[in-house]
């Protein structure tokens, strides 16, 4: 610019003609203006630079200090994150979208046996040469493709001769524009846990096997207890009919009461173990409800009377009497509840109410209630009352013995029969135990009077009975009871001897113990039935058994027997069975 301007001035100085000079001067002025404009700009830039220098330098110094602070914070943060990544007790890794490792933490590197910086860019197959699966990589690929995190991926890997189980969580990583750029994986060594789980599984199996064995043992031992119990109760009964002093009678009553209590305990334990072992099955047969209730009342009224308690039964008119159900189990529940009511009531009354809830076709639901005016049950105990070994923690628990199994068994029995059981109680006023059971209506027309008549008219005088029983005490008890009924009794000590006597004499009835030496009861019964084949003869045979499990009845009947009596049995039970067999 200045060069051009100087050149124009020089040209101007050489012009001689004034007219040319004026024309050229215009160009010089234009150039001068341009020069001036450029000069102004340069001057501004210079001045601006000077003016701005202080502000910008101050701003830069301050903001640099800020950036330093930020940088220091970021450095600390980075160190914290690095420490976190290194010390976290898990294998942590980042992979890119091609599933190559980008960063791994120290525990991962140690597990792999390769320095962390040498893992970058490698695949799982590079790091773990023995790794052959694709399932894990498939899951990682799915996570990257779908954007979903995946949890609890368990896998067993083998590396450097060691097998280990790992549990992994994986999640995609996104950049600021929300694009997936890789994934993070966090894995834990769960080998110990897996081993522990296996141990627990084995322990559980052992425990279950132990429980089964225990139940079988209890069932077996309970069975073995029945024979001596029968002896104690039977002999005591015989003894009771002999001439005794008052003191001896009191002592004998004590023995009988204790033995009866022990029998209840034994039955509870046996039932409970059968239920627990899953061997308790219901035996549905026709029965008469009023008859069962009368039987129970006979006993309970006596027990209630001993404590000066009233005992009343109220059966609604619409309650059907002929039912199909497991009368033994029903009886057991009812006896348990009424027995408890008597036990825990000191004054007042016991009432049993039976009502029909609904009837549909040949099905009916009956509700049974046992009310007492006893001490009642605290509300906090009600929920656990039907649980195993539950006893109400109250003064009465100190006074009254029991296994704590009774109500638990009632609950399980009602469950097995498709019913319900419950309790309502007010402390100091009494309790209401109730249960609901479904029954099928029976169409067998048989009434109580008919049965009662046949019972009353029975007579066994001069009838000959053979009792085959190896246990001498039981032999003696049965003989005593049969003699009291009017029978003439012959005895055999084993099955062989019984069969010989069968051939030698003409008997009206044979009572066979099942477990006998030489020949057991089944074999004897089968031999007799074989002998009778082709004739019109049919000798009545009753089995004596310490077994009381469902299915036994079918076994005896299959062997040709006409009835059975479970030990220990009462005089009445034996007599009733004989009546049903001989009539």
């Amino acid at each position, binding site marked *: 610019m200045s060069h051009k301007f100087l050149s124009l001035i020089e040209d101007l100085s050489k012009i001689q003609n004034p007219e040319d000079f004026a024309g050229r001067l215009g160009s010089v002025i234009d150039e001068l203006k341009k020069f001036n404009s450029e000069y102004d700009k340069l001057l*501004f830039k210079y001045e*601006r630079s000077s003016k701005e220098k202080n502000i910008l330098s101050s*701003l830069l110094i*301050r*903001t640099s200090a800020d950036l330093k602070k930020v940088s220091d914070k970021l450095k600390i943060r980075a160190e914290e994150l690095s420490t976190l990544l290194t010390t976290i007790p898990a294998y942590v890794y980042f992979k890119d979208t091609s599933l190559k490792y980008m960063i791994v933490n120290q525990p991962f590197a140690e597990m792999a046996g390769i320095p962390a910086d040498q893992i970058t860019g490698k695949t799982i197959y590079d790091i773990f040469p023995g790794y052959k699966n694709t399932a894990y990589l498939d899951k990682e690929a799915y996570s990257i493709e779908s954007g979903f995190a995946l949890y609890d991926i368990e896998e067993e890997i083998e590396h450097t001769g060691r097998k280990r189980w790992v549990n992994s969580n994986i999640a995609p990583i996104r950049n600021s524009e929300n694009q997936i750029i890789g994934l993070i994986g966090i894995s834990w060594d769960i080998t110990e846990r897996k081993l522990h789980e296996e141990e627990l599984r084995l322990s559980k199996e052992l425990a279950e096997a132990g429980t089964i064995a225990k139940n079988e043992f209890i069932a077996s031992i309970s069975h073995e207890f029945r024979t001596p119990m029968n002896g104690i109760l039977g002999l005591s009964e015989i003894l009771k009919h002999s001439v005794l002093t008052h003191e001896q009678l009191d002592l004998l009553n004590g023995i009988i009461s204790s033995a009866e209590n022990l029998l209840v305990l034994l039955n509870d334990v046996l039932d409970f173990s059968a239920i627990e072992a899953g061997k308790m099955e219901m035996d549905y047969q026709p029965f008469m409800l009023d008859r069962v209730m009368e039987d129970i009342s006979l006993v309970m009224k006596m027990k209630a009377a001993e404590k000066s308690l009233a005992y009343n039964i109220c059966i609604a008119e619409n309650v059907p009497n002929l039912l199909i159900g497991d009368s033994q189990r029903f009886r057991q529940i009812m006896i348990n509840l009424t027995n408890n009511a008597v036990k825990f009531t000191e004054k007042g009354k016991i009432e049993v109410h039976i009502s029909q809830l609904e009837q549909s076709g040949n099905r009916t639901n009956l509700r049974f209630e046992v009310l007492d005016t006893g001490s009642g049950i605290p509300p906090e105990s009600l929920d656990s009352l039907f649980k195993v070994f539950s006893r109400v923690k109250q003064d009465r628990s100190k006074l009254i013995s029991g296994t704590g199994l009774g109500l638990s068994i009632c609950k399980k029995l009602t469950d097995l029969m498709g019913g319900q059981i419950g309790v309502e109680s007010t402390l100091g006023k009494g309790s209401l135990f109730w249960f609901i059971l479904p029954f099928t209506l029976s169409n067998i027309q048989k009434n109580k009077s008919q049965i009662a008549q046949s019972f009353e008219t029975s007579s066994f005088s001069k009838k000959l009975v053979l009792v085959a029983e190896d246990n001498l005490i039981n032999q003696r008890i049965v003989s005593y009871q049969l003699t009291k009924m009017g029978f003439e009794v012959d005895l055999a000590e084993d099955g062989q001897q019984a069969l010989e006597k069968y051939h030698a004499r003409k008997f009206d009835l044979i009572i066979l113990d099942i477990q006998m030496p030489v020949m057991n009861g089944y074999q004897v019964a089968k031999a007799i039935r074989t002998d009778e084949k082709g004739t019109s003869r049919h000798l009545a045979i009753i089995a004596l058994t310490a077994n009381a499990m469902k299915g036994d009845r079918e076994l005896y009947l299959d062997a040709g027997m006409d009835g059975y009596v479970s030990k220990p049995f009462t005089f009445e039970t034996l007599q009733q069975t004989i009546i049903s067999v001989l009539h």
Partner: protein
Amino acid sequence: MILKTIHTDSIKGFRQAWSDNTDDGFHPNAAIIFSSVDLGLRELVDFLETKNVSVFGCSSCGEFLYDSQDQIITDGGLVCLMMTLIPGSFEIKLFNGNVKPSFNLGNEIGKWAGEVFKKPAILVLGSGLDTDGEQLVKGIQHHTGNEIRMFGGLAGDDARFKETFVFSGKTLENNGAIALVLNTDLYEINGIATSGWVSIGADKIITHSEGNVVYTIDDQPALDVYKDYLNVRDTDLPEIGVEYPLLIKKPDSRDILRAVINVDTAKKSLIFAGTVPNGAVVTFSSSPGFEIIEDTRQKVNQFYNQNSETDMLILFSCMARHNALGPTISEEINEAWQNWAKPLIGFFTYGEIGNNYTAACDFHNETFTMVSLKQKTDVA
């Protein structure tokens, strides 16, 4: 559309020029005027009232007028563009600033614009140093929607930061806004807004603000922070502060600059041209130097390539650009004028309003905001 221009440094000169321009029977129905407060705006408005013309004007912080005759950038002068717009295709209305806050003022303008035309475009000027340009824009958009074409600026007072004005052909208002609404069925309006300012330093947090008043930054008094960081005195603000605005970081990457236009030394607070939200992440910012001219040049050329035909151009350029670029500001204005070679009028503002291409309208600081206005040929 017939256009005539005036540039002068006195009201007397303006009267004469107006007379000269209308001697030939030219009767403009609208005029755009940007003038220094020093010229006597009351006298100017009194004169205009006699001319029965709709005026869209405001006080300025430097004015410029480029046409085939002159290319002038002035301080303390007046520029005017006399126009014959299609009757019924436009309306101008001045709004009293007693309608506060700024959002409500904008709301009133937006409501009116929607009543005048079904598809309006708006040119708007605001006066008053407490006016929050962002709220003014949001108030208008509340009625018109974000898609509306809208451009304008906040009036200046030659960098004194005392009192700014908008005016019509009848009224002068130091706290309000004037709006020119155009029927977009008849006119095509496009524009750009470009800054070039760059972020400096670490993030800071606005720890206490109310609207466009910032009390604390990183829990320090806002005025102290500015003085400390810029190493200036109370009296250097807000003028120096205008050149070093806060850059507000937004999640959508549409960062926005907010310039200081006033200070409250008693409360140690700063008043910005637009809202600075409480909790906003901000940085200081500065022009990177004279290279922003090249940046503007590229943006203008790009805009020209997409929009090469216009009848006139209106430019709202931040006074901070004038401060930063000095006489070299002519280079970026000249670039615009040379491309289209059509009359260009504008002024240096305390804040700009505009759409960047087809984006929603925002309130800006430190920008070169240019509008092209073209009468559609089929209605000529």
